């Protein structure tokens, strides 16, 4: 009775079920971030004064985090390659590097926010900072969730189990990456 339903093994659309589902997850995430960022951009265009507030974000820290996140994505790709070759141990190790990148990102963000909050720029300071913390915070939650899932998958992959999941978390991680590629210029570079 431990057999999975036969439904889980079919592939009529020509895409493995797991990958198909991850793409649908990403499709729904795109509209969540899309709605938030569209709201931000409309406000930003209507409020020139926000550039004064935006000047107080730290572009260098943002750039460093961009670098960290992009590098971690490279490891996700290499992990996928190892998983395709059937090398679960190597895939798990590379996933740990990816997770380390995600953790670094979150820690740097925590430092950055504590500096900003100590300078008096809080969630409720004004609408620019509200958007800043909400958008980056929602993204950071995705980073943290990704790291947790990645650790679970790495643990199984190390035993050569469920190797196809390495690809799935990789797709998700790239999505998290791309969201940041939108956030970084919108929140940091545009002054």
């Amino acid at each position, binding site marked *: *009775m*431990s*057999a*999975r*339903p*036969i*439904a*889980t*093994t*079919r*592939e*009529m*659309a020509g*895409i493995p*079920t797991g990958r*198909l*589902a991850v793409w*649908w*997850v990403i*499709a*729904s*995430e*795109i*509209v*969540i*971030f*899309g*709605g*938030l960022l*569209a*709201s931000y951009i*409309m*406000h930003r265009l209507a*409020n020139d004064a926000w550039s004064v507030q935006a000047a107080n974000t730290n572009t260098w820290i943002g750039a460093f985090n961009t670098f960290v996140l992009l590098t971690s994505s490279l490891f996700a790709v290499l992990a996928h390659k190892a998983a395709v070759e059937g090398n679960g141990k190597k895939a798990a190790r590379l996933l740990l590097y990816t997770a380390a990148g995600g953790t670094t990102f979150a820690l740097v963000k925590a430092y950055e926010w504590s500096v900003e909050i100590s300078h008096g720029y809080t*969630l*409720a300071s*004004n*609408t620019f900072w*509200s*958007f800043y913390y*909400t958008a980056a915070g*929602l993204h950071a939650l995705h980073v943290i969730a990704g790291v947790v899932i990645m650790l679970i998958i790495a643990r199984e992959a190390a035993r050569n189990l469920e190797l196809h999941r390495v690809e799935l978390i990789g797709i998700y991680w790239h999505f998290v990456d791309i969201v940041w590629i939108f956030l970084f210029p919108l929140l940091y570079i545009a002054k």
Partner: protein
Amino acid sequence: MAETIATPGAHDDHGHEHHDEGWVKKYLFSTDHKIIAMQYMFTGMAMAVIGGFFAYAFRMQLAFPGMEVPLWGVVTSAEYNSLVTNHGTIMIFWVAMPVLIAAFGNYLIPLMCGVDDMVFPRLNRLSYQIFFVSAVVLIWSFFVEGGGFGGAWTAYPPLSAKAEYSLTPSGASLWLIAVALEFVAFLMGGINFVTTAMNSRAKGMGIYDIPMVVWMIVIASILFMASVGPLIAGAVMLFFDQQLGTAFFDPAQGGDPILWQHLFWFFGHPEVYVVLLPAMGIVADVICVMGRKKLFAYRTVLFTAIGTGVLSFTVWAHHQFIAGIDPRMAHVFTITTLLISIPIAEMCFCYIATLYGGSLTLNTPMLWALSFIATFLIGGVTGIFLGASGADIYFHDTYFVLAHFHYTFFPIAIIGTFAGFTFWFPKMFGRMMNETLGKIHFWGTIIPFNLIFLPLFVLGAAGQHRRIYNYDNFPELALPWMQDLRILATLSLIVMLGFQLVFFYNCYVSLRRGKKAPANPWNANTLEWLAPSPPPHGNFGDKLPEVYRGPYEYNHPDRSEDFWPQHVPN
């Protein structure tokens, strides 16, 4: 199916149940799609009872202002606001969505696609559990200090954002959390539905061999997925405004209240089609089987539904014509809104053409299906007045609007549900429903329904505004003939609610003593009728069916029988 991996957090919300281990596992923590469908169905029906009771309480206040309402007491103005708000919220998010999409989707997709379960059974169970928690949170919000949220189901700020206006400091936030949790549950469910229908159909089932109801639920799930995102972002923002002092929607501090209306209606209008399409699908299946006719223009109906879905993303600002949007913008949305009536009318015409020349069996499911088309057409036609920005300036926020959307949502959520429920009842429970009781229930629902809402059209056209607690305070709206129509609507509501007891009695009697249902009592073609009634775990036994033709081959000229099941080779 034994569980090898426990789902985290799965064991908390039913902790109070102490039944036999097997019963709990089978009915509360099952991953079987049919059990989960029933969980959604019965939760939805229980919520419908609450929502109907709320309607009774506030309608009594409108008909007999200040009277002590039996079973409720005197309705205060704060309670009135909370009742109308939560009536709307419950009926849309906790009745229409779980019953039409989640219950029918869960039950029908694997059976009609000829497989043994969903592709993600445990995700499916988690989806129901989150939904259950969301219902608990919503009910909890009625009992906190200040009472349940009273800012209308659309939750416009500043009323929803500021406790000093809404006077429901905790109710508003709990309401928002409940709605957000419900969205998460349906996102999970929707991904499961779409992936299952895409990837695990019976061998040979091409995309034009899929029964219309499955297509409609899939399209609705995709619409939901594509539209709910901005509102999830908006819900986070509104929650921060309520609890953390941000000002996303406060113009005094650089925010914009109209932004919420855009985020809400960008979701809210596609949401109409999210619940409409599954009901349209149910009706398509019922009229083909009961009319013994092939669905007229299968592909036209399908592409029309997809077209409606795309178009539904371009009409949302017709809810905001008097919110101060640019009149040039209003013109654009008038045009798109009037355009969207074309595909829906086209679908209705296809259904009528299906009925033409058929040999109709006027049993309970068919009566519901036919009345769906009739009542929904009234809802659609009255929508034209509201979609035209000029006419809407007068009609906006009157009872005309209210009657209009009840003429769309009632056919969807109630008539469509009853059509599907009575049609698939033999499959779900293995017994036939009592036809006499079914017809009494049908006429006892459909006649009072029209007597509730036709007077409200008249009142709305006479200028009666919505969301007013006591019309005695507005002499020009408290004329005797207007009050008479209010009383007529309220009494009709009570009659209609009373006739629902017939339905519950019918369910009880039919489950106990109904005639045993054969596997295929209606001589229908689709795959769910191949499985035994009720289908066992795994649905079809060892060998899953294969498909050789489309779902609606009734009265084929080359066949002596008037139906031609999908799974029969020739």
